């Protein structure tokens, strides 16, 4: 039996096409994926992301534990409410998952991890936590709605009590706070401004309906995928997994290697860095007509590579992809599509953010 989020009935009412996603029956689109994509770039759209796993870390050694568990340095989180993106690595430096951590107070941090990796994540986190004075608690009773787009925050603020709206309006990007029943974070996975809201499951349908009434478009996983690809954000299980390190996944910037801090996977990363990282994850823009897809072979002067994500970009009106290719390759490469070699330019993602194509991509 597939699992359903508290918004399942709301999706059916809105005419969603449902698909299986990591054991969850989720909306892929509500009609046109491309229209949903544009709605988020130009106005506001919302996604049911209740399938994602919320994990609370409580206890006196919460910060100490996360400093050890995560490749990015939780010590960077100095003000309550601040959020940090990080990979969680195994001892070999491979990526177990990517996640966001929110610092709420010294004895309370919240993590949001992927749905498809739920079981192995929970097993890993709880096993690593044993050496620390912390309590790991899943929060399956929370639903989550991501409201994204240039008018998204405004649409959410209009639903809040006046005092909460005033404070939440002041919240800076990559910050979060508790507003009554709502845990509101100014984060997202689309390259647009917006909020990700965690709330009690029984309150989810009412908020969803209020946002619908306010003109926020329901958007499915299809649009979520093209939006995050344009925004240059990796998808776990596709662009990275336990066989690659952050250094081979365009995530070197999320790994704090400079200081004394010991964390899981650090030694492996230092060794990889010393012996030379062989591959890199780059962006591709197809110069010919056609569509880039995951798993296509890339040909460069320095050897072959492979696309990890690929699609038609509604904002660029061209095919774009992420590809893992030999480190030395720059500027251009070719992709094998059904036996034909087509030209691609190699670019540095993001491709599009904040409603527009990024400079230097086209």
């Amino acid at each position, binding site marked *: 039996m597939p699992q359903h989020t508290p918004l399942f009935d709301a999706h059916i009412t809105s005419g969603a*096409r449902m698909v299986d996603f990591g054991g969850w029956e989720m909306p*892929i*689109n509500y009609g*046109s*994926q*491309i229209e949903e994509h544009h709605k988020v770039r130009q106005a506001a759209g919302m996604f049911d992301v209740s399938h994602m796993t919320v994990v609370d870390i409580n206890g006196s050694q919460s910060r100490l534990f996360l400093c050890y568990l995560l490749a990015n340095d939780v010590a960077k989180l100095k003000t309550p409410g601040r959020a940090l993106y990080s990979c969680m690595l195994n001892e070999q430096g491979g990526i177990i998952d990517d996640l966001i951590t929110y610092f709420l107070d010294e004895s309370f941090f919240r993590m949001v991890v992927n749905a498809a990796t739920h079981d192995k994540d929970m097993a890993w986190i709880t096993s690593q936590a044993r050496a620390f004075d912390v309590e790991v608690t899943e929060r399956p009773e929370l639903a989550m709605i991501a409201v994204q787009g240039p008018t998204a925050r405004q649409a959410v603020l209009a639903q809040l009590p006046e005092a909460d709206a005033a404070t939440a309006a002041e919240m800076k990007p990559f910050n979060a706070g508790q507003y009554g029943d709502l845990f509101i974070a100014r984060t997202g996975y689309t390259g647009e401004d917006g909020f990700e809201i965690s709330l009690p499951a029984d309150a989810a349908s009412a908020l969803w309906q209020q946002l619908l009434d306010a003109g926020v478009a329901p958007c499915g996983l*299809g649009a979520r995928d*093209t939006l995050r690809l344009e925004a240059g954000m990796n998808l776990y299980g596709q662009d990275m997994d336990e066989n690659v390190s952050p250094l081979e996944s365009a995530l070197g910037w999320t790994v704090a290697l400079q200081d004394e801090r010991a964390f899981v996977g650090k030694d492996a990363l230092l060794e990889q860095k010393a012996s030379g990282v062989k591959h890199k994850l780059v962006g591709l823009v197809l110069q010919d*007509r*056609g*569509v880039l*897809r995951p798993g296509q072979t890339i040909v460069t002067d320095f050897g072959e590579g492979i696309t990890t994500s690929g*699609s*038609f970009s*509604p904002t660029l009106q061209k*095919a774009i992809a992420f590809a893992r290719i030999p480190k030395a390759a720059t500027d251009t490469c070719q992709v094998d599509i*059904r036996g034909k070699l087509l030209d691609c330019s190699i670019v540095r993602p993001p491709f599009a953010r904040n409603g527009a194509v990024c400079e230097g991509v086209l």
Partner: protein
Amino acid sequence: MSNIPSHLQYTESHEWVSSEDDGSARIGISDHAQQELGDLVYVELPAVGDELGQGDPCAVVESVKAASDIYAPVSGKVIAINEDLDADPAVINTEPYDGGWLFQLELSDKDELDGLKSAEVYAASLED
């Protein structure tokens, strides 16, 4: 529910075939197929003059979501392709049976038409 015009014939792989007055056949994908694929963004068609065998993969339609092969429902020679799809593949989504046709064949064996599904049989197969 998808639209399945009764005057057309269908294949298991969701192509439709329209028998034209001049004895040729026009081919496209069904409303059900376009719904499953989602927004179409790219179409690769055979060339005029290509000889196709029944069941040959002869075109590709790509949506944002996926690429899908199109198989020749009957054998024959390609006498026309829908060049408008180059600029606007989304016509397949809005008019799968009209503006969204893919290509036209001069049949090499008219009897092959008898093996295609009627609208009724195709509709029943979608319900399984």
